[in-house]
């Protein structure tokens, strides 16, 4: 899978006073293709940071472009990228991944962006333009100076882009208005701060948009358990099993003679699911839904906190 690899900083551009764009490339490796809405994970000294790719997926010349807003915090990844990184530096990355893919069955796209939330739409708009599909961008920012890619967008997408500056209330009113009188086949994509997304989500509900055509990031990357701790498990209401810090629940159960099915051992395929009866669990999979996490866990990656109780079905009972 997209293991970590290194890229070189080819170019840095100041987009606005607080936003810089970075072009990353490689002389030795062929960089993987990506889709509109995809992001790259940067492995920085202060941890992993994810940034949307802003170049056109259909015109990718072995480079990835990202735009980063300097959030200014002392230990922040964005500040590091803005202040420490120089052209020629090597950084470690993984991906690209895509939690925000463009659905090609849509007849028309409505993009809602606020501030730096514009980034995923840059790849989407250039991609859809190449395909000849119709879209609109509704873009809110405090003022022109703080409106990343304002010039590029208004030049390139003069007919599709609506930029909203000015007071918060006025912007809200206009954004809501933009959702009105839409035809079947319209898909809505939104990216911005939480309050912005909530306001738009509420409006789509008021207007009876089917929620399946309203898209924000589909699911978050799985939580990585950095410092695994031992825990105690009661199995099928009888056996008591102790899982050490350096082993998984799946490994322990199989060693105890439970023939639990498994496949990926990465929290992706769902094969090793067990029923959670009692206790708190650190879920580290990207398979179960939030609802399912209340009563299930994937034994390959997720761990109990203290004592938990589970029920397991044996392999073979599932045909």
């Amino acid at each position, binding site marked *: 899978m997209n293991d970590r690899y290194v890229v070189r900083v080819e170019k840095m551009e100041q987009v606005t006073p607080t936003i810089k764009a970075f072009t990353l490339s490689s002389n030795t490796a062929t960089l993987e293709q990506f889709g509109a809405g995809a992001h790259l994970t940067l492995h920085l000294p202060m941890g992993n940071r994810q940034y949307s790719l802003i170049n056109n997926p259909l015109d990718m010349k072995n480079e990835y472009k990202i735009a980063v807003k300097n959030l200014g915090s002392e230990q922040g990844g964005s500040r590091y990228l803005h202040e420490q990184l120089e052209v020629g530096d090597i950084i470690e990355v993984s991906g690209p991944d895509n939690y925000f893919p463009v659905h090609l069955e849509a*007849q028309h796209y409505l993009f809602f962006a606020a501030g730096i939330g514009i980034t995923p739409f840059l790849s989407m708009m250039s991609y859809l333009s190449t395909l000849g599909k119709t879209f609109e961008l509704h873009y809110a920012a405090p003022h022109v100076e703080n409106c990343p890619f304002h010039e590029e967008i208004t030049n390139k997408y003069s007919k599709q882009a609506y930029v909203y500056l000015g007071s918060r209330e006025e912007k809200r009113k206009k954004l809501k208005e933009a959702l009105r009188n839409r035809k079947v086949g319209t898909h809505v994509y939104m990216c911005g701060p939480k309050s912005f997304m909530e306001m738009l989500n509420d409006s789509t509900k008021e207007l009876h948009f089917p929620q399946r055509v309203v898209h924000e990031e589909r699911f978050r990357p799985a939580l990585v358990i950095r410092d695994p701790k031992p825990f105690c498990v009661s199995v099928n209401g009888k056996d008591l099993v102790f899982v050490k810090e350096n082993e998984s629940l799946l490994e322990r159960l199989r060693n105890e003679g439970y023939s639990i099915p498994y496949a990926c051992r990465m929290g992706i395929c769902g094969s090793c699911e067990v029923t959670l009866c009692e206790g708190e669990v650190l879920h580290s999979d990207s398979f179960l839904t939030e609802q399912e996490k209340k009563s299930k866990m994937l034994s390959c990656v997720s761990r109990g906190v203290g004592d938990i109780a589970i029920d397991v079905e044996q392999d073979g009972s599932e045909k």
Partner: protein
Amino acid sequence: MKEGLEKYRHVLVITDKKHEEKALRMQRELQNRGKSVQLEVMASLDVLIGKELVSNQPIGRGLIIFGEGTLGIERVAVSAGYSRDDIFIDSSQESRAFCSQCHHITIIGSDESFICENCLQQLEPSEHYSTYHRASLAYPVFKETDGKG
């Protein structure tokens, strides 16, 4: 009322002349439940007119189709961007069986074996159902003696 229709505030009902009566009943039933209903009656279901109708609907509407040859309109509705579960087809329609040997669809009256109109194979419908073809897959019937000797 059909299961799943409860969530729509607006519903478009399309019918051919022959099934108008039924469509009217559906309209009344939906209206009694406070829904707004647009009823469109065509002499017979026409894909081009249907396409124009379904593509210009506001987002979030349910679609009900009555009549002979609903499949054409159903497909243009999917292309126009309807989610497949926003489309409801009159369930009292005749059963259709898809011949696994020649792909011809025969209208059948029961679940018993039948002869394909096109390739004349004796077939038996199965439970494998395609919502795309609106038909059940039908397998050839073998006799114990087939292939022996």
